[in-house]
């Protein structure tokens, strides 16, 4: 199996190792680095459970190969955060019951964080639209929208 050496920064730590070229980023993070907070839901780029930040942008961890992250900075749910925004989102998700099984939650949080960084005052429709690449089967999405909206409102005041 063809392999290649890569160096990258993951959650602020330098990582260097040899990976099979066909290994995708989320499997690398989960199984090589033990960062199991990013989940695998479809391996087709559709469900958003594997969302991570690659050089600050959300990407599907299943659609990026580990070798493509060579030289990059990767943040996962275990490490990601701009200021205290992620902490606010976590608190609101908890208080408003915006998660049940929690499998989609890391991807939801990172996507919601990205939304609020780019658009601090989104409408409910904009929140729904932005989160539409993240599948949740347990909630009715409403509590998630409520939580993101509540954080936006609280931070604006």
């Amino acid at each position, binding site marked *: 199996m063809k392999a290649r050496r890569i160096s990258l920064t993951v959650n602020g730590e330098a990582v260097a190792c040899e990976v*099979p070229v*066909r*290994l995708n980023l989320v499997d690398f993070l*989960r*199984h090589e680095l033990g*960062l*199991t*907070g*990013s*989940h*695998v*839901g*479809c*391996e*087709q780029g*559709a*469900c958003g*459970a594997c969302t991570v930040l690659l050089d600050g942008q959300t990407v599907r961890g299943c659609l990026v190969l580990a070798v493509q992250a060579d030289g990059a900075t990767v943040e*996962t*749910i*275990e490490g990601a955060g701009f200021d205290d925004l992620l902490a606010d989102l*976590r608190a609101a*998700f*908890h*208080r*408003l*019951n*915006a*998660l*049940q*099984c*929690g*499998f*989609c*939650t*890391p991807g939801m*949080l990172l996507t919601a964080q990205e939304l609020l960084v780019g658009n601090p005052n989104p409408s*409910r429709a904009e*929140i*729904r*639209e932005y*989160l*539409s*690449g*993240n*599948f*949740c*089967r*347990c*909630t*009715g*999405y*409403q*509590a*998630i*929208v409520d939580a993101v909206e509540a954080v936006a409102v609280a931070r604006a005041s």
Partner: protein
Amino acid sequence: MSIGAEVPRDRAKRLLLGRGRFVDDISLPRMLHLAFVRSTHAHARIEAIDCAEARALEGVVAVLTAAEIADGVASWRAEHKLFPAMAAPEQFALARDIVRWQGEAVAAVVAHSRAVAEDGAELVDVSWTELPNVVDGKQALAPDAPLLHGHMDSNLAYTTVIEAGNTRKAFESADVVVEETFRFHRHTGVSLEARGIIAEFEPGEDRLTVHQSHQTPHQQQDLYARLLGLPEHKVRVICPDVGGAFGLKHHLMADELVACVAAKLLARPIKYIADRMDSFLADIHCRDHEVTARMAFSQAGDILALEVDDLFNAGAYGQYPRTSIAEGNQISRLTGAPYRHEHYRANLAMAFLNKGILGHIRSVGHPIACAVAERLIDLGAGKLELDPIAVRRRNYLHGDDFPRTSVGGVEFEHLSLRDCLDKALTMIDVARFREDQAGLRAQGIYRGLGIATFVELTAIGPEYYGEGGQHISAQETCLMRLEASGTVRCYTGATDQGQGIDTGIQQVAADTLGLPMAAIEVISGDSALCPMGGGSWGSRGAALAGEAALRAASTLRHNILAIAASLLQKDAGCLDIKAGEVVEGGITHMSVAEIARIGHFQPYTIPHGVPADLTVTARYATTGRMFLAGNGLQIATVEVDVESGIVTPLRHLVVHDCGRILNPLLVREQVRGGVVQGIGSALYEELRYDNAGHLLTGSFADYLVPMAGEMPDIEVAHIETPTATSELGAKGAGEAGTAGAVGAILNAVNDAILPLGATIAEVPITPPRLLKALGRI
């Protein structure tokens, strides 16, 4: 009081940090990975399986076929003694000789990594001889149909009739009769976390330890012990965090059993994580019914009679261990159940087909029973030129009708149908909607409003599986342990997949014991640690595990107070526990922590005869009642784009009665999640097969699930009628959202297209189906 309070879940904090522990997050030393070779045909004879190339691949440890595992695992049959005439052909962990559905596991490749196991699976060469297949119920029951199971005379798995009164006479004398043929297509549960298992076998002890994403650890313990020939106490099934289940994780799945057999044969831990294609192919499917139903009315709008003919397109086998009958049975028993009528006949014919196995997914049968009756009422009201809301109110069971056994044989302690309707009508101004609707129609905008009344069967009693011969517990036991520091551990047989039963039990224990919630921890999902119980399915947690917790906590409270009374030389009847302190009126005597310390370390200070057990158990099962029935209704408004055929949900409201509510914060969003699943099956979700029995929807690009952008806000209100059958008064709440959403959306779409002279009775209501109904294509 914490019962009834909006308490967030402790478990959620860990999940929010990305520190959940799902099966695929677990790695064990020397663990191997499993991938399956699945049938590419719907019906074929296996002539030969050539594994040589796969076995030669670097990293492959073993390739298993039916021959290799034959001695290691028994076969099974999906039998149910309450339905003794139901066909129950023999099933095997890996197909022997003949495959009967596309996706049936034929061989298993064990390798050092999942990727290599998948490479190996591609190298297994199976020689097939295709056999004629049947993928449609009518075709399957035709006299000359090819047979799935050679020992049967036909593909009819089961047929039955439920009858009350005399429908023939009632229809003859009715003023108005309406009839419709409905098609409810096949879909599945689509948990975001796919099924997964790690099986570990210790040959020195004959011990199997399984980590599995599952709803019922004790059921799996029993099944693995019996099928693998192990003593039950040597099998331990642990369900860590479960990433959604919805019924698809409370069955025995052949591929998961193969992981256990492989672990036993190889004496190494084996991990199998289904991928999304495996999931669509080989998860339990649901629905797939064609229902023709007729309803008879008087001129005044009374429902006189109802007839239901259900052709149930089941899978290639019955689901094990529960069987596939329940969905058909629920449709036969529940259709029209909220309404008073005396004459009823329901006919069920269940056909084996060359498709995936069909079983229990959230709200088994309910959405179909509800949609059929609710659509017929709208059709009847239309023909009678009566207000459909008034027709419903007029026919609802209410007041003196209870307690009642419905014509379909469902027992109702009480239903609050009129109260729910009244409440709903305060939430939406129907007259105003009708005005707007008329105005918008003039502009070519087609909106509709649909109502669906449902009953929700929850907390099944022990008779159904007890008499059926299945080893499935409908009883719950709570083991409650006062630790020496005064905190409490509750061990329950119920499992938590995010619905929050852990929190509900914590609330019940806190209130009953007079302790803060923070002093209580709930432990679940471990067949070795937790008392035997049913797990979580069929909306049973709050009603059964909650009541068991209440009883255990009452006993523990009694013992704590008995010890306190003996130490204080008081009458226990004068003492109470509040906020962790034993009190008498306004006087605080001592803490529960002090009693715990004495009870564990200085038991000699407690006189003989005082009940000083600080680990107690209590059990609860319903008796003499098959279900606890909740009820409610949903109102949906939609907009139909008559050019594109796209249906946009606008408003969706639910009024629901699930008895006493332990935690409204959790119940509300669980109801909403159910609604979204119901809207999914009403508008998007479908497992489509071609005529050759090949699944056409094996990815999220083809099988559409509802995402945030398509879903409306969902308004949820509750009427709270506690059941008198338990002290806690809770009923289940997990089915409601899904039960009513299909009917509400179906009626709303039909209301929208009524002025175009069109109707539709097929779900999901996809754009092509709707455009066809509108005569546009």
